[in-house]
């Protein structure tokens, strides 16, 4: 008996410890430099942005196996999946579509080419910087890395039908909607830890630096009394107000729409009441987010946003002493009839001793191309 118990204990230890598979922590996905694939180069030679993106999306789909394609391709009416984007790490909030980690190098190259074609140079630099920021975090903690980002192709990409490209992961969500031939590139969430520039594999990246600086520059340009009128007193901000969580997996934008301030909550300094130089700073700040896309897409958006300046507010919140990039809870926003941009300073999560940025860019009427 004694002996059999001992044997059992051994068995126990042996069985109890049966292996442990490692999680595929973000192998680095390269997205620097020129287009990777010939197919993408051919797509880039097309004349309209719509044609280019549809072509590159199909080129990506063509590289996939049948089962990968099933995961990557979503129906336009699959609103639940279409609302699966977030700021949180992907283990906590899985993203829609196909994760880069498990697919072939050819498919990964085609995915990155698609992004490069869909975004402007500025946008591509942002994506690359954010992917690298996660690789950088991945050196400190498992569960972060550029291969953990996902791409989804919603609908059938073509010049004559509606479709959407979703790309995102931790601190990143691009939802690029093509509806009726027009381009609706929101909701868009960008954040970064670290928020400052950083080095990775010998190169320097700064995906959020100019965005933060542009928002703070507006505040800096205001006089003391203007700052007071733009202050959101009595309110605290632990994150952006119209957060990704309002949408995640809900299949409707009702919650997020209801979170835009109305009535007495809608306050700040009217952009139309600003001086020319102050107003120019607002335009520069909006461009940081809206010009993530090529001019063909961004020009009409910017024109619409500037046209709405007489109903567009700049506001800030957090400690009454003023917003500070190193103080969590500092908050800056631009709130127009369509454009909605928030930047909030949050405490460090992985890099504990320093703050990081969350930002969101929404279009009150254009999110998801107005489809849900």
């Amino acid at each position, binding site marked *: 008996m004694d002996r059999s118990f001992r044997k059992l204990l051994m068995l*126990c230890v042996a069985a109890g410890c049966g292996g442990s598979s490692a*999680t595929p922590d973000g192998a680095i996905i390269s997205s620097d430099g020129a287009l990777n694939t010939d197919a993408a180069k051919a797509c880039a030679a097309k004349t309209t942005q719509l044609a280019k993106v549809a072509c590159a999306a199909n080129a990506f789909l063509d590289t996939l196996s049948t089962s990968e394609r099933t995961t990557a391709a979503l129906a336009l009416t699959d609103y639940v999946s279409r609302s699966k984007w977030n700021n949180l790490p992907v283990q906590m909030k899985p993203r829609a579509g196909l994760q880069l980690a498990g697919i072939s190098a050819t498919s990964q190259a085609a995915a990155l080419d698609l992004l490069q074609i869909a975004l402007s140079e500025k946008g591509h630099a942002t994506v690359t910087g954010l992917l690298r920021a996660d690789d950088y975090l991945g050196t400190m903690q498992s569960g972060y890395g550029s291969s953990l980002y996902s791409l989804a192709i919603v609908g059938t990409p073509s010049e004559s039908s509606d479709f959407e490209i979703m790309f995102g992961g931790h601190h990143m969500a691009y939802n690029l909607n093509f509806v009726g031939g027009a381009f609706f590139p929101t909701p868009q969430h960008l954040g970064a830890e670290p928020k400052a520039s950083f080095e990775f594999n010998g190169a320097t990246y700064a995906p959020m630096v100019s965005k933060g600086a542009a928002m703070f520059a507006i505040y800096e340009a205001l006089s003391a009394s203007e700052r007071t009128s733009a202050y959101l007193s009595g309110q605290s901000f632990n994150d952006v107000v119209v957060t990704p969580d309002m949408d995640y997996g809900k299949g409707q934008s009702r919650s997020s729409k209801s979170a835009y301030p109305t009535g007495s*909550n809608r306050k700040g300094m009217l952009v139309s009441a600003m001086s020319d130089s102050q107003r120019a700073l607002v335009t520069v700040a909006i461009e940081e987010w809206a010009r993530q896309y090529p001019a063909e897409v961004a020009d009409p958006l910017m024109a619409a946003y500037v046209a709405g300046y007489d109903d567009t507010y700049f506001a800030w919140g957090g400690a009454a002493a003023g917003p500070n990039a190193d103080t969590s809870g500092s908050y800056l926003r631009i709130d127009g009839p369509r454009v909605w941009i928030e930047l909030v300073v949050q405490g460090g999560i992985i890099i504990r001793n320093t703050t990081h940025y969350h930002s969101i860019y929404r279009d009150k009427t254009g999110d998801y191309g107005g489809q849900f």
Partner: protein
Amino acid sequence: MRPRIIVLTGLLLAALLCRVPAAFAHDVKGSLGYVDIGSDTLQIEWQLPVDELAPVFGWHSLVDAQRAVASPDFTNYIAAHLRITTPQGTPFAVTIERATTQEHDDAWWVRVVTTAHGPAAASPRQATITTDIITHQVVSHHISLFLRHDFDAGHVGELTFLDTLHYQRTSLQLDRAAGSWWRGFAAMVRVGARHIADGRDHLLFLLTLLGPVTLVARRRRWEPTKPLRATVKDIVGVVTAFTLGHSLSLFACALGIVALPSRLVEALIAASIIVAAVHTLTPLFPRRESAIALAFGFIHGFGFASALEGIGFEGHTLILTVVAFNIGVELMQLGIVAVLLPALALGLRSPIGSVLRSTLGVVAASAGCVWLVNRASGGAVAGQAARWLDAAIAHGWLFGLVLYAVAAMALLQRRVTSVLESGQ
């Protein structure tokens, strides 16, 4: 090497090889509200992130939070920011349980349970929940409300998203169609049955314990000579004792009379499987299986009760819930025993019975060991092995097939032997 050293080395190796899962840090979270509709109460379990409450109360540390949450001021804060009324605006009486802080999902949360009783003739199925907990100040905060239980609608445990509340949307209309207690009762029977079908540890224990009941212990060995009548009597005894044991603790636990830490209960359940498995290999407690079944049944009952944890019902809804759940547990248990036991008994009495018995013993012991190590370590150790085990046991019907094949062979062999013998 001396056996003790082997064991120690093994344990050391186990500790080295087994990976501790990495914790994921995360950003700010919204609050959660789980709504449970009983026959006459509307209970909500609130999970409020400490980080989000901090700016409201000016907390600077977890200690600040824990001290504040324990004081009546916190309960008063919840009371001041929560209002539940009939659709016509008549208020429900809301009682608030003392709040506690707890850590889960890699964050600290305040858990508080509010129970609302409507005015006479008001149904908790039609109510307006108005709250601006946290959101009156933290405008980035949001509260996601989920329906968790609706007894009369037969909706138990599954989360249904209701709505997100925030600084500009502070009210939720609850409008649930009328149901009946019977729907809830039937749903709970199904939950109980499913709990057994999924909770393979309970079944494995019972089957392992029942196997040797069909045999007779002689000189510390099992021998297949037990008469049928005695076998049936003993099986009924064991099953009844197990039922009695788990019913007792299930009721005691569900009604809040006794409580045991779930980690301890889960580990004890695993240990019970190991004991039963060893008993299969070599008689530990022959003819006292019923007493063992009673004692371990009592432990397993606490495990069943965990399925009812936070069910959010009171009074007669709670009693109905527990009774129905127990009936479901019992039905599924008896069903599976009735299907598998005849084959098991036949197989164990066949010439390859001892091989079958050792296999059952070793397999059950290994499973018990994996669970024991995994559960006692709070899931930190042997997680992969436990997942493999679950995956393997998910194909438990294969075990049944093998058992029936063995039994069929045993019958056939006996038939052939008797034909040969009568021919001689």
